[in-house]
């Protein structure tokens, strides 16, 4: 898989990153409405909901969260979801379904390389957007920054999660060899991940038995624990990194196998 990853090949990666950048930013309104809009609206709803729950009571503490801490939690949830879970591998499934992967079979650049380079480009854009959004939110005093070392750890952890999310999304994408519509899998994955990872409400509010079970799955490590790092609390770091690494490798291997099996089924109509 990695035999082509030499210096000559790196220039192809660089060019693909540049092309993908242009593609992502060509339809800016669509990009905003599709990628940034949902995260922004989600944050806006949560802000209003919790403002309504706390109703200006500065003394009210819910499971250890004052209103400021709750908004701080959701601000970091917004940043984490933007950077770690923004990518949807939409083009990947479409490439397979529309028969465009025939090009990759001819070009001296693998399908997975093209889409991984495209994802890297997407991540750079997401990082820029997240930085700008964070600057705006901090201007309104809605977020508290941790120490620099914890901030750096949080960013690194979030980027690592984005790699895991990419391998998972890649799997839903290559399922297009068998499925007519892969968006259903992607949406299902997002719904489950949002609910079980603490993106909607902090896991502290969940029943303890459920949290104990969830801690054995990768879900809390996708959102809840990275947020905790940004909030200055490092917990279950080793376990989280171990679980995420394990599942990233597992999904990468499954992706490889699924691709090998799927390409045998592939027929490009009209080519």
């Amino acid at each position: 898989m990695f035999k082509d990853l030499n210096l000559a090949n790196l220039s192809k990666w660089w060019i693909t990153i540049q092309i993908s950048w242009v593609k992502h930013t060509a339809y800016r309104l669509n990009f905003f409405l599709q990628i940034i809009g949902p995260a922004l609206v989600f944050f806006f709803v949560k802000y209003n909901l919790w403002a309504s729950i706390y109703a200006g009571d500065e003394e009210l503490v819910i499971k250890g969260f004052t209103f400021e801490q709750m908004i701080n939690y959701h601000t970091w949830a917004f940043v984490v979801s933007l950077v770690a879970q923004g990518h949807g591998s939409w083009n990947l499934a479409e490439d397979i379904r529309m028969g465009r992967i025939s090009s990759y079979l001819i070009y001296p650049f693998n399908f997975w390389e093209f889409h991984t380079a495209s994802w890297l480009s997407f991540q750079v854009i997401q990082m820029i957007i997240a930085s700008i959004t964070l600057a705006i939110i901090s201007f309104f005093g809605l977020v508290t920054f941790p120490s620099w070392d914890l901030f750096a750890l949080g960013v690194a952890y979030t980027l690592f999660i984005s790699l895991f999310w990419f391998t998972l999304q890649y799997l839903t994408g290559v399922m297009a060899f068998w499925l007519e519509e892969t968006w259903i899998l992607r949406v299902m994955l997002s719904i489950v991940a949002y609910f079980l990872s603490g993106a909607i409400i902090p896991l502290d509010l969940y029943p303890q038995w459920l949290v104990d079970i969830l801690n054995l799955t990768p879900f809390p490590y996708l959102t809840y624990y990275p947020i905790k790092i940004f909030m200055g609390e490092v917990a279950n770091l080793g376990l989280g990194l171990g679980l995420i690494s394990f599942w990233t490798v597992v999904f990468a291997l499954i992706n490889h196998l699924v691709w090998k099996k799927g390409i045998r089924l592939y027929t490009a109509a009209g080519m």
Partner: protein
Amino acid sequence: METTFTSRLGHYWDVYKKFVSTSVSVETSFRTSFILLIFMDLFFFFSSVGSVSFIYDHVVQIGPWQKNELLFFLTFMLMIDNLHMMIFSQSFWEFSFNIRTGQLDYVILKPMNTIFSVFFRHFRASSLFNTPLFLGYLIYYGIQVGLSPFDWLMVPFFVALSLALLVVVEFILSTSMFWLTDGVGINFLRMQMQQLARWPNFIYQGAIRKFLTVFIPILLIGSGPVHFLLDKSAWQLLATMVVALFAFTGILLFIWKIGLRRYDSASS
């Protein structure tokens, strides 16, 4: 005149039955997707209800409502979501695709009202499987909040009214696709509107609440009927909702014509 209207209605009903039967045939030929769609709806339903339940484990009330009242509101909105998903959702996505590819030519050439042929074309039968469950939850929470027999009679009418307002606002928004190269983003905007509407109006404050009540009246969709069902003196929102439905239908008919004139087929 009445005969003409009745026969036209009958004709449209016959056409709609064909739309439904062809949609069902297509959908059931992709069985895995069909089953996954059922599960997707279920996950969404239970994650929404679960989130609200978990919050209420730690607070007594949100705004003026306690747990059962908010869950009644939520199940009312999820019922509308279910019907929306079944009757309209797919047509919005097809609409943006058809504009981009020029296939809309064949849709608008049909001898029918174009709004009907564009937005009622696709039916998602998989959502029908979850309807009894969602309805069961709505009835359960309706009992918990003590709805009267009169209220129960009004519930189906209110669901239809709310769905009508939601889709009319969405039709207007979708008309903007005529001016865009790719309208997919508009569909995401539409989904965000639904997300905003999924919470009662009192969680939003000040100008935002006014804007989402008057200019884009999505907060009326659930809050209008449910506030009325829970408290008969709160009829103002419901009345505003009826007015909004008529006003926005007028806007839709006007703007749709302009949009059609603006449409420049990609295939010609």
